[in-house]
């Protein structure tokens, strides 16, 4: 025989009283848990919506990135073609060549061995291509009594490690001559004309279009013939090259380093215009790509931020509602349990009276009622949690019931329900239970 035995038997005996009290706790806990679970469901939903949007944005950005990269590449390609059209932009000279002579007189008086170009071609260099060895000297053309720049070229030397490319300048066969614009217009030469240079006869095979630079006063002949005419057998004045597209930011520095390592005693000069155009091209391509990306990102992020704000707004409203509803419910439940316990105490007056007469202490009477409240709280808390979770799962609008249940289930909330509900029930029934404990048994027992 224990107090629990008494309590459990009383519960069985007055089922309705227990049921109503437990129902009240169930409703209170159910509302509380339901509200919290719904808020949690809302949070999960918000997160998933925002995640979706973020993923979408990332996809859009990635697509944009690819598009701009492609566009940039195309742009760069275009510019590359243009700069290529502008011709060689790298000039490899003997170290001792006086650049002042080149810029002021248009002449290159220093020479270097021709096989250097072979060495370069076989070196595996990647920062330049289209190697063109030339001899070039400013000479007096005695037969026509004019100063011209004589350039001998043997055609491009293919790089050993790369696929052959369409040359920027073709081989000039022996006995033929290409003539710069200023000269052939002045002399009124036509294709097929025979001209004599330093006693040797050449056929004019190419009349160059206007370039606006020293090329307009230049004639081109076969390298070997030029070397012979200038008494420069196996020597060249310069090697022309075209910067490769693959070079990085410090292009010219890198090219210099490469070449000077392979060909010590040489010096690399960059022709300005085409290099600038190239750099400009890269920059513009990059900038346009970055701009459009930035915009796409900013737009997407703004959209996400807006979504977040509106979801937060809804959440705030729901929280306010819950903040109003839940305490009202708890108070209602507390009052209800108080009344039920009060009724229970009145019903049990004679029972309490006799138990007191038998010798039970008032704490034992108190514990009789509080134990019952504890059971009511645990039962109502457990069922209330289950119902609250059910409400959350059903009304939470999450796509899959099973995952929603496992996402929304919270062991902390279960424990809180199982602890707080009995506490609530005990507090609510405290006053009537105290009344029962304080009740004067004599009064009850006197009633006939």
């Amino acid at each position, binding site marked *: 025989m224990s107090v629990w035995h*008494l309590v459990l038997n009383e519960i069985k005996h007055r089922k309705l009283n227990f049921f109503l009290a437990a129902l009240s706790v169930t409703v209170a806990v159910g509302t509380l848990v339901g509200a919290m679970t719904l808020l949690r469901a809302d949070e999960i939903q918000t997160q998933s919506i925002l995640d979706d949007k973020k993923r979408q944005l990332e996809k859009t950005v990635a697509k944009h990135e690819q598009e701009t990269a492609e566009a940039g590449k195309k742009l760069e390609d275009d510019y590359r073609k243009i700069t290529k059209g502008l011709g060689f932009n790298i000039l490899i000279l003997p170290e001792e060549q006086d650049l002042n002579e080149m810029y002021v007189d248009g002449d290159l008086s220093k020479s270097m061995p021709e096989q250097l170009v072979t060495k370069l071609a076989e070196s595996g260099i990647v920062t330049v291509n289209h190697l063109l060895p030339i001899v070039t000297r400013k000479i007096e053309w005695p037969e026509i009594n004019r100063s011209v720049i004589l350039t001998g070229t043997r055609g491009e030397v293919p790089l050993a490690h790369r696929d052959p490319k369409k040359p920027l300048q073709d081989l000039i066969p022996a006995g033929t001559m290409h003539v710069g614009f200023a000269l052939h217009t002045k002399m009124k030469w036509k294709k097929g004309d025979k001209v004599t240079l330093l006693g040797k006869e050449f056929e004019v095979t190419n009349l160059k279009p206007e370039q606006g630079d020293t090329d307009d006063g230049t004639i081109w002949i076969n390298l070997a013939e030029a070397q012979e005419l200038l008494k420069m057998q196996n020597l060249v004045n310069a090697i022309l090259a075209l910067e490769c597209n693959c070079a990085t930011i410090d292009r010219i520095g890198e090219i210099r380093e490469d070449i000077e390592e392979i060909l010590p005693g040489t010096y690399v000069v960059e022709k300005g215009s085409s290099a600038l155009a190239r750099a400009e091209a890269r920059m513009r391509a990059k900038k346009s790509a970055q701009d459009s990306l930035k915009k796409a990102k900013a737009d997407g992020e703004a959209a996400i931020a807006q979504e977040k704000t509106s979801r937060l707004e809804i959440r705030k409203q729901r929280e306010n509602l819950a903040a109003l509803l839940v305490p009202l419910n708890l108070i209602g439940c507390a009052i209800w349990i108080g009344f039920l316990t009060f009724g229970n105490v009145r019903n049990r007056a004679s029972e309490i009276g006799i138990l007191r*007469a038998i010798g039970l202490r008032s704490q034992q009477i108190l514990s009789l009622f509080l134990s019952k409240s504890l059971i009511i709280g645990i039962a109502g808390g457990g069922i209330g949690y289950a119902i609250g979770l059910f409400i959350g799962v059903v009304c939470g609008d999450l796509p899959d019931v099973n995952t929603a249940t496992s996402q929304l289930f919270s062991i902390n909330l279960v424990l809180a329900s199982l602890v707080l509900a009995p506490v609530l029930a005990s507090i609510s029934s405290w006053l009537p239970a105290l009344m029962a404990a304080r009740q004067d048994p004599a009064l009850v027992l006197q009633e006939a």
Partner: protein
Amino acid sequence: MLQLTDVHKTYSKKASKVVALNGVSLEINAGEFVAIRGPSGCGKTTMMLIAGGLLGPDEGNVQVDGTEPYSLSADDRAKFRADKVGFVFQQFHLVPYLSVLDNIMSAALASDNDEAKHHADELIARFHLDDRAHHVPAELSTGERQRTALARALLNKPKLLLADEPTGNLDRENADIVLGHIREFAAAGGSVLLVSHDDHAVSKANRTLNMSAGEFVK
């Protein structure tokens, strides 16, 4: 065993005052069965509650087995009741949701009585409640209910048994059974104070006192 000395009790409710006991003195020895007879409202129940440690007197002294219950704290007085006093009432006051056995055993909640179960089984057998032991009061006859109440009062082997109209709801046959058990208790050395206005019940006592308007009369 029980000693009441010049006990006064007045119920005051707002303006009205009811003098329930007006200087009552009484002594009951061990093994003595005393009955008090008197008309309704003369103060019988009041005296019994005072004797049992449930209702403090306004004046006068109460002693049970050498203990003055009203000098004890409430909890100690509860313990005193559990150990020394057994109550039986006209309305039985059984706990409606407990079986006969559990009702009898409920007295053990108040005392650390190791032999309670054994004693309860003994009482059930002696009071012929064997086949009713697991029935709740609603399923019992009135005689069985009063026997259950008496068994509960006797579970902790009290020194003093207080019986307030224990036969008021019983027919003659059942009243005789219950009165027989009360006599047995007294014969075994217990003290009994029985109050009633029923002459038949009173006739079984060793000694009878008449009461009227809160005082003993001749």
